[in-house]
């Protein structure tokens, strides 16, 4: 009872602070200095039509490197915490998982290639339309989720997924370091020519970098889902 009272006092204090912030807010009329710079110089210097993509990959590329590192750490820690020793395999009772139904199985044969295609489209065209690597990676992970739902005891190859993830990360950092020697600096996108505005082969290395980020994020989300789903498989084998 006393704990609830303290919680309510804390929330009341927070509400007072939030009310002060809310009533002191005035909407801007003109773009502030950094937004003005991004709006003026993105199209001419970088050639990207999607300004948010240009900010994430080039202007603030170091933040994206940090985010990719955090995701990699998360996927590795989940794999480490949920790993079990291999000595727990006792006699395997033949257990039948409930059959998922013909509608789901047939539908997944049709849908999984289309979902993969949509994910690849989203991260290849990240510099022209809304989209990019993170959205495309999440769409690719949902394709593997559909495969998992159809057949829960399916065996996914961990080595393939970890190889895709490592090679994508290596190429991302490698392209960045190449930018130090051949162009303006780390992760500068003028490694390849800027090209005509609005075509798919424009904006330097932004589509290539975003494709690698998309593959890496998709592989990481897939490995998270597979690790969580495989805990039941190993449980069945060790009972």
């Amino acid at each position, binding site marked *: 009872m006393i704990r609830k009272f303290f919680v309510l006092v804390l929330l009341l204090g927070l509400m007072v602070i939030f009310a002060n912030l809310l009533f002191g807010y005035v909407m801007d009329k003109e773009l502030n200095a950094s937004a003005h710079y991004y709006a003026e110089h993105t199209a001419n210097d970088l050639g990207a039509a999607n300004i948010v993509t240009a900010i994430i990959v080039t202007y603030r590329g170091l933040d994206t490197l940090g985010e990719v590192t955090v995701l990699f750490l998360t996927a590795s820690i989940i794999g480490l915490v949920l790993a079990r020793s291999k000595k727990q395999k006792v006699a395997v009772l033949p257990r039948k998982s409930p059959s998922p139904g013909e509608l789901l199985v047939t539908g997944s044969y049709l849908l999984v290639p289309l979902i993969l295609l949509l994910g690849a489209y989203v991260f290849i065209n990240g510099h022209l339309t*809304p989209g990019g690597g993170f959205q495309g990676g*999440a769409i690719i*992970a*949902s394709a593997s*989720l559909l495969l998992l739902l159809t057949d829960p005891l399916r065996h996914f190859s961990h080595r393939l997924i970890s190889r895709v993830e490592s090679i994508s990360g290596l190429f991302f950092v490698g392209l960045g370091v190449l930018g130090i020697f051949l162009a303006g600096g780390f992760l500068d996108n003028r490694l390849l020519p800027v090209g005509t505005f609005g075509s798919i082969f424009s904006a330097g290395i932004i589509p290539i970098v975003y494709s690698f980020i998309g593959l890496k994020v998709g592989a990481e989300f897939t490995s*998270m*889902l597979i690790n969580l*789903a495989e805990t*039941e498989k190993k449980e069945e084998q060790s009972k």
Partner: protein
Amino acid sequence: MSNILLGITSLLAISMIGVAIIAIRVRRPAIAILAAGMISLFASILFLFLAAPDVAMTEAAIGSGLTTFLFFFVLGRVRGDDHD
């Protein structure tokens, strides 16, 4: 025209707050997880009204899709034991 937008925005806002109160008070954990997914979906529509299409796509794919599935995977493993 902007009156319609304002009306839809306030409708979404009120329903988000209602669903949030349901999410922290309901008995079964499965309904709380579905309520959190619904809040992410409504937030994605609000992002579209606030002129942020990239953020809307990301929130719809990741917040409303993958997070709900992660929750249900773990809920399926701990079922049958704890009914709080």
